[in-house]
């Protein structure tokens, strides 16, 4: 409803290139560090050992046995179950028993509240499965090394990469099991919480967004955006009523498939109203929708429609429309040769404004079942768990359990939308007050972010350090995944289906991008280290 389903379309070539560069750099760094380490500990013979190991690694990769991997997977799985990882269900059960505490009124259900319910379930599930997976993946291998039970495994023909893979798969499976059980319970809980008469609020809308939005100002000239009415949130921009101001959407690939079963075109909007004077408050503000075909100079305008703020407003346009006594077919006469449909929205009331953003108007395709979207959201959580498992397991091959857990958690924490964006701002110098050292100085000295630093050569050093740190951050930013790709729950709690191209596919790609580096890194670390706890 009020969220911005950004287009996270990945450019395949650039993404893959980027991936190759990042993985290549990482591999180089890892190999370099370990060679230096080997030379330091074993002298000149270290070089030979390094290349032997490298060769051994490659040979091992070709001798993987599914049965061994599966044995290690089962081991991990059994370990988790027998070590009472499933106790998390107790917490889960308790939370749901007392969920009403956080929810407020359950008698009056508004569309907004459905969103809160769904978010609650999905957030709870992800925050409960996360620690389980985090603990299992970060403490498994270190514990195995500490108890030396790993000795009985590596002295069998099991390859160390198989241990890493077995751990990852086993933990992910247990994560998925926990997730699946919670998801089923959560699904029933949502359906039960919402009274029978409000069940229709559980929607899974399938939107088709315009590829672009353009604005026209009150004089009729093209404008970058509409008017800012003073909202802190600059998501929507506003157009003035009874002037030439309007917003224009362009929909691509418009064809039969976008019509509903009756052959109508459905537009849904979530415009927002802004009054410059209150006027008659009982009368809503009005807008109209115009379909235009610039090639044929045709235009069809709907009747004025009331703005229904903060709710879904559906406008149905029949396939056959009549303009001045002549009948036209929307698909044939309004869709241009490039299969584009141009839609304009303007405000009717004088001196009043209607706010809109690109995602505020979309063609609504036939809805899907709620459970379809819900389970896609669960898939999103499962992929996040997989990502964490991979990072956690490979971290745990290098450092001790608690450190691996903190490291993995920090990576996850930084991957969250707000934090990742903050990291972006730091990297691109959009944050006022300088880098780490400079801002510490400013904090201690009570200096505002815009105040000039005193002319002192020491600050050259400070700035240099900050520059170095910032470049390190740049590296981190490229390595740490951006969890916004895994935002399936957000779509579902907003009543939308999870789109394939902008959510599922990118998240699958991001996850798979981590498989190779994580597995290799874990394997490498496990191989070059002596499996003695020290």
């Amino acid at each position: 409803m009020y969220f911005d389903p950004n287009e996270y379309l990945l450019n395949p070539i650039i993404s893959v290139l980027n991936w190759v560069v990042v993985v290549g750099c990482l591999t180089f760094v890892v190999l370099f560090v370990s060679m230096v380490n080997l030379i330091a500990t074993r002298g000149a013979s270290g070089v030979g050992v390094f290349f032997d190991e490298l060769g051994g690694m490659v040979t091992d990769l070709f001798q993987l046995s599914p049965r061994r991997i599966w044995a290690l997977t089962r081991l991990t799985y059994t370990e988790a179950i027998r070590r009472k990882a499933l106790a998390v269900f107790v917490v889960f059960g308790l939370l749901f028993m007392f969920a009403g505490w956080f929810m407020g009124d359950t008698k009056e259900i508004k569309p907004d509240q459905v969103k809160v319910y769904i978010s609650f379930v999905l957030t709870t599930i992800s925050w409960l499965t996360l620690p389980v997976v985090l603990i299992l993946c970060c403490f498994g291998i270190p514990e195995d090394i500490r108890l030396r039970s790993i000795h009985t495994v590596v002295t069998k023909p099991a390859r160390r990469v198989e241990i890493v893979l077995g751990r990852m798969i086993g933990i992910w499976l247990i994560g998925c099991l926990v997730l699946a059980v919670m998801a089923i319970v959560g699904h029933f809980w949502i359906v039960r919480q919402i009274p029978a008469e409000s069940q229709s609020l559980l929607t899974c809308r399938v939107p088709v967004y315009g590829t672009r939005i353009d604005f026209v100002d009150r004089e009729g000239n093209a404008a970058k955006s509409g008017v800012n009415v003073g909202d802190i949130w600059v998501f929507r921009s506003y157009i003035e009523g009874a002037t030439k101001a309007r917003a224009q959407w362009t929909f691509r690939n418009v064809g039969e498939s976008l019509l509903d079963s009756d052959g109508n075109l459905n537009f849904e909007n979530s415009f927002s109203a802004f009054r410059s004077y209150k006027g008659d408050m009982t009368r809503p503000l009005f807008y109209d929708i115009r379909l235009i075909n610039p090639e044929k100079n045709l235009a069809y305008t709907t009747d004025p429609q009331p703005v229904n703020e903060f709710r879904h407003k559906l406008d149905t346009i029949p396939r056959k429309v009549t303009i001045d006594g002549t009948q036209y077919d929307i698909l044939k006469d309004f869709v241009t040769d490039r299969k584009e449909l141009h839609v304009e929205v303007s405000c009717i009331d004088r001196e009043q404004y209607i706010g809109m953003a690109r995602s505020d108007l979309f063609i609504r395709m036939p809805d899907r079942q709620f459970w379809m979207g819900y389970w896609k959201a669960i898939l999103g959580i499962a992929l996040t768990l997989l990502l964490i498992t991979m990072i956690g397991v490979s971290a745990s091959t290098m450092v001790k359990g608690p450190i691996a857990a903190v490291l993995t958690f920090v990576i996850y924490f930084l991957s969250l939308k707000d934090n990742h964006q903050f990291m972006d701002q730091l990297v691109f110098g959009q944050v006022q007050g300088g880098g780490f050292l400079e801002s510490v100085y400013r904090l201690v000295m009570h200096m505002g972010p815009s105040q000039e630093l005193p002319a002192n050569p020491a600050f050259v050093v400070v700035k240099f350090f900050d520059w170095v740190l910032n470049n390190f951050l740049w590296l981190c930013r490229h390595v740490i995944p951006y969890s916004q790709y895994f935002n399936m729950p957000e779509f579902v709690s907003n009543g939308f289906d999870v789109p394939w191209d902008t959510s599922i596919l990118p998240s699958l790609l991001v996850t798979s991008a981590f498989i190779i580096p994580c597995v290799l890194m874990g394997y490498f670390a496990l191989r070059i280290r002596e499996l003695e706890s020290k």
Partner: protein
Amino acid sequence: MSQSETVIEIRNLSKVYRDFWGRPKVRALNALSLDIKKGEVFGLLGPNGSGKTTTLKLLLGLLFPTEGEVKILGKSAADVSKNERIGYLPEESYLYRFLNAYETLDFYGRLFDMTAAQRKERSEKLLDLVKLAPQSRRRQLKEYSKGMTRRIGVAQALINDPDLVMLDEPTSGLDPLGNRDMKDLILDLKAQGKTVLMCSHLLADVQDVCDRIAILYGGELKVMGRVDELLKAQDETQIRSSKLSEAAEKEIQEVLQRHGATNVKVDQPTASLEDLFLKTVQESRERPGHRNVTDNQSVS
């Protein structure tokens, strides 16, 4: 025997443990060289901290050598494929305590890529062999006594019918009966033509089953050779007989003195390996660097 195939070849093997900063902390093993032949039962002896377990771990690739090299079954220690033919019983059976006996053997069987039928057959056979009571086979290992853990530990070491068995303190924690079973098992393995490398500080075990031994002290090889040869004192003759009368003993002493024998003692024999061991340890403390290696073939 000296002509048969060499199973383990250790050359100039050293291991230095380092601290966090990479500074040398302990020299656990110093320039060890020895060969072990196929079909031998070889015992590594030494007090605690003498480098026995370190040697074993270096052989298995659990630790990396600081210097020197190791060939085991003709392969390097880092080569995982050598493990196909090796069985290893760790010092304390470091098994997964949440599995039961069947699951344990099934798990290790899978690691050898054995089929389900193979695993099942082999598990039953091994559990019988190590005499693990049937009623305890379905219990998780965390409920096992030390002796039972040792038995299942041996079973997992033999899951792949290995050619080379490495046993780290095989009899530790076993009662006398278990001890006997373990020794029988080792002799049985020898009879099957397997090579056994065991390390122990329990001298009686070693004396009973080993063909050859090496005594390590402070990471250095002190004594090595065939057990019977090592215990044969070169400048002494021992006469054994059933219990004699006092007159007979006196007569014998006179005969011996007539032949120029000095320091004649007539008493019951003692456990001589213990003597050897203590003597070696004692000498090592007094004369560091001294070696008594009778078995020349192993030093190149």
